[in-house]
């Protein structure tokens, strides 16, 4: 069964010590309002825990949130952990305060969206619908 035909299940991940939670909470609600299932693990998570949850819960997509400027590290760890747990087919999207210079790196890693503050919620919701309908390719990026 194609992923797009069942209810979209989103794991929202905040990895490390970033405390800025407002964006993650607002998106969690927007995703639910759009008919998606949301698993939000809260703050202070490890990338491995986020990836493992996504695999165990058969998630359609992982949405990473970070406001410390460290998304490149968090995304790489998450993608690596997904590989480790056999979840490389799960697309990863990201948002928060992401330095512009990190965008090419994230795209190459296969992490899409990479939205900043003020992005209309429907843009993010539509993006999730898009990435969960296709087999999103992930490029190899050296550490």
């Amino acid at each position, binding site marked *: 069964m194609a992923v797009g035909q069942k209810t979209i299940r989103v794991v929202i991940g905040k*990895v*490390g*010590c*970033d*405390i800025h*939670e*407002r964006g993650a*909470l*607002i998106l969690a*609600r927007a995703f639910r309002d759009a008919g998606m299932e949301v698993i939000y693990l*809260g*703050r*202070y998570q*490890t990338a491995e825990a986020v990836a493992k949850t996504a695999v165990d819960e058969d998630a359609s997509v992982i949405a990473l949130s*970070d406001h*410390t*400027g*460290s998304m490149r*590290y*968090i995304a790489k*760890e998450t993608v690596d952990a997904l590989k480790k747990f056999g979840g490389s087919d799960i697309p990863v999207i990201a948002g928060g*305060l992401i*330095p*512009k210079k990190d965008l090419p790196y994230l795209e190459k890693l296969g992490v899409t969206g990479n939205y*900043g*503050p*003020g992005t*209309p*919620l429907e843009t993010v919701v539509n993006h999730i619908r898009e990435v969960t309908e296709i087999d999103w390719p992930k490029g190899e990026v050296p550490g």
Partner: protein
Amino acid sequence: MAGKAEEKNNCEVVYDRSLGGMVRDETQGFIPLKVFYTPEDIRDVEYNRDLSDPGCFPFTRGIYPQMYRDRLWIKSFIVSYSTPEETNEAFKEYLASGQTGLRLLADLPIQTGLDPDHPSSWNAMLCGGISSYALETYERMLDGLPLENVDYELAHMGMSSFLSFYSYLVAMMENRGLDISTLRGASINDPFRSKIVYGCPDFPTEIDRRICLDLIEFSVRNTPKWKAYAPNGVDPEQSGMTAVQEAAHVLAVATAVYTDMINERKISLDEIGPTVFSMDAESDFFETLCMFRATRRMWAKIAKEKLGAKTARAQSLRIGIRTSGLSLQTQKPLNNAARVSLQILSCVLGGVNSLDASAIDEAIGLPSKEARLFNLDTQHIITHEANVPLVADPLGGSYYVEWLTNKIEEEANQILRTIEENGGMWACLESGWLRQQIDSSRTRVQTEINEGKRLIVGVNAFQGEEGPINKAIENCAYRVPSKKLRLKTIADIRRLRAARDPNRVDATIVELYNATKEGRNIVRATIEAAKAGVTVGETVGVIRMAYGYGYDPLNQIGAPVFIKNLLGGN
């Protein structure tokens, strides 16, 4: 969408007469407003009872008789870059530019109570501040700066930070042979904020509450010019509360902690002196300044009638401000200069006592130095060119301002009654009621933004194009620290641990453990441990172990072998 003229083919622009018209008839915090106010709206106001002159109960118009003529507000802001050396250099530059308070912060792992070599530290290490894992980092950060008679402020999130960094300041003074009673400044030290805003995992609430009281008690006895407790409304409001909710929240938090202080530690409000609240300055100009006026008046009454404060000093409320970081936008960041300037002006008109203004590039990254200096200059311009602070409470007596001040007090009192009905603040924290208040307001705001009932310039209205000035601001924000710098920090803490005197470390750790376990005040033990080079993560772990919890707040690592050997357990 409002603010965007509809474009037809061939560049023919349809003229929209309503472009730029008002879309709201309520304040930012949902208070409905009339078109104008009259004497009828404030006919119950009695000058002596409700307003009174500045410096007189209930301090609605300000807490000092001469207000800003005698003492301007303290100009401070958080300065914390990735390294102690960089932060030190910035402090010196800002002090030379007229900054009068040094607001200290640390990176996020340290504020969570984790040392830099903890597995969860890597991602956020050196982000938002220095990794102040031990006393030696403070010595480097404050090298060549005076410790006496400068206002230091601690603005961290976890209660472990307030304990550790107050201890570092005292330890530095003692090591330099200075009189610690000259230490000045304030510490947020608010156990409610640590939990409802940050969910900070360093300690459970029972330990948070004890540390808060220990710090107030130690400070009253040893550093009387230090305000060891500054209950915080800034971050709850930034997380979603309205102005009215913020006022009620911060008043309830202060009442809860001081009630415990009076009952358990037998320290009166008169011994503590003026109370400091850290409050938020949001974009709604009049609502913000009326919130300050209402909160001062409400605190004066609570302090006098509920907490038994006899002196005017103990009934008066100092308000320290952090302007809203949430109001700042990444789109067209030059507009943030207008937002911050208006917020600063509402603070000054509202009679606040210290001001930490957000920087215009703060939504993009850590503030750059030039953006910080712009903050200071804005305050200098308001003072010296606009002459705003010459007259105290210049809007006092305005029909609208007095009505709105009364309205905020009335609605905040309603919330205070609900808190009482729900068993008081500690019960409201544990039950999740406080968190629900934040969540429901935040959702309401977000719904209004989505529906275009709340316009944010450059974001959901008046988007426009960014030109070279905006682009330059985007390129100036401070960059996140490199991998190399993070690795160096881990090497530094390992080097420190290896270089310490093990006997002194062991002795101070055992004393900290025993003091915690036996219910003695733990501040002195923390100071001595700091002098021995004990780290933040170790301090947190030892205190947790004394309560029977595991060493690591995140349960990812065990206690170091030497601590296991000293104390037993995990």
